[in-house]
């Protein structure tokens, strides 16, 4: 009989972790070595976050932690204990209305197979919050750490600029509505 050593390895110690994912507090019991990406996908069944390279190169697993974009494959679930996490599932409105970045990807044909898209959407969402009016060069810098093997990136760059337009339009519409409401 072949002994693969599985029987001799003690089971991993388990830890309790609480993550506030897309506004909902979620609990899981995980081994210390559980990556945040796997915790989201396997323990919490949120499979929108995609796993490509698992060493921080492709960007498909990007999520927002307290509003900041990070690679969920380069972080332990335990390091995120107590943090507020936004995944691609949390970008659209509750009624299904697409976020400006999602709408821009639709408008500009910013995806083909869609595997890399969750990482682009979260990355661009965080970047536009910090820089609402990027130049084309800045748009390229924003997506420089994300790989896409289908599109050739041109339409993704257009989508970044379009998303910025949509955000600004939504912002000024909200401001006018506020003024109308106040008068």
């Amino acid at each position, binding site marked *: 009989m072949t002994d693969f050593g599985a029987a001799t390895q003690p089971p991993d110690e388990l830890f309790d972790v609480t993550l506030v994912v897309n506004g909902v507090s979620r609990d899981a019991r995980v081994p210390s070595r559980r990556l945040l990406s796997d915790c989201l996908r396997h323990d919490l069944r949120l499979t929108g976050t995609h796993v490509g390279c*698992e*060493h921080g190169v492709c960007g498909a697993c990007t999520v927002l932690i307290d509003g900041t974009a990070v690679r969920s494959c380069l972080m332990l679930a335990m390091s995120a204990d107590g943090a507020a996490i936004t995944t691609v599932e949390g970008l659209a409105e509750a009624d299904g209305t697409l976020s400006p970045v999602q709408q821009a990807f639709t408008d500009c044909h910013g995806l083909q197979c869609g595997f890399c898209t969750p990482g682009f959407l979260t990355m661009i969402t965080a970047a536009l919050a910090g820089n609402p009016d990027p130049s084309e060069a800045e748009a390229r810098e924003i997506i420089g*750490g994300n790989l896409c093997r289908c599109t050739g990136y041109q339409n993704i760059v257009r989508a970044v600029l379009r998303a910025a337009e949509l955000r600004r339009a939504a912002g000024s519409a909200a401001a006018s509505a506020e003024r109308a409401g106040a008068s």
Partner: protein
Amino acid sequence: MKPPPFGYSRPESVSEAVEMLASAGEEAKVLAGGQSLIPLLNMRLAVPSHLVDINRLSELSYVSIADGHVVIGALARHAEVLADPAVRAAQPLIAQALGLVAHPVIRNRGTTVGSIVHADPSGEMTAVLALLGGTVVLANSQGERTVAARDFFLGPLESDVRPDELAIQVSMPVLAPRAGCAFTEVSRRNGDYAVCGVAVLAELTESGAFGAARAAYLSVAGTPLVVDLTETGGDPAAAGRLAMDRVAPSSDIHATAAYRRHLAGVLTERGLAAALGHARERGSD
């Protein structure tokens, strides 16, 4: 592509962290930003017995200017250091280098102290620490010690941090009056590891003439290589030739030794010209 099993503890203070390191044994590692360590775990190139996760040590999350030095705590992320206007004004070389460290999303999580401790020969901040003659503060359960940059880097991915020690802070001198700096590198793609890179510091005399210059190189040796360029009299072309003479790079899948040597020459020439220009610009303010 899953990390091997390891013990895990998450201290809430530095004193707790060093106690945990003291009892965790020789094969324990500190986890800070994890942007180098976790890929190594995922690929099982590192198999630590235990990780001490310092991400709760908010007492180490600081960047400040004190006594003529930029002081960076172990939990300050690259992005925080890069965005700090006081650091940019006090020592512009730090921001020049940090802008070339990986991609923004990696800089959001990776720590500056962590990348220095990691001692990757292609790390931008290791070269900056070596060029500026900075120091690293290491703590264990007995106390603290301070190590100078020239003694800190022992080899590729090897720094003078003992198994029971936690690097808590790095410190780098601010840019002197009449001095200028530049950081330049060549990489295959935006955000990739540099095939060759150089950080240059140049100083003018009180009369505005050339005073001294030195350069630090990444990706051409196992540890950051510092070369004194003063004998060139501030002539960028002569500095380029001196650099080609002094570096001894090796070949790998990314570049041949000859190409790296060529880059060291070209980048030194450009870097010295830019650093001298920067020094003159500051002198005329």
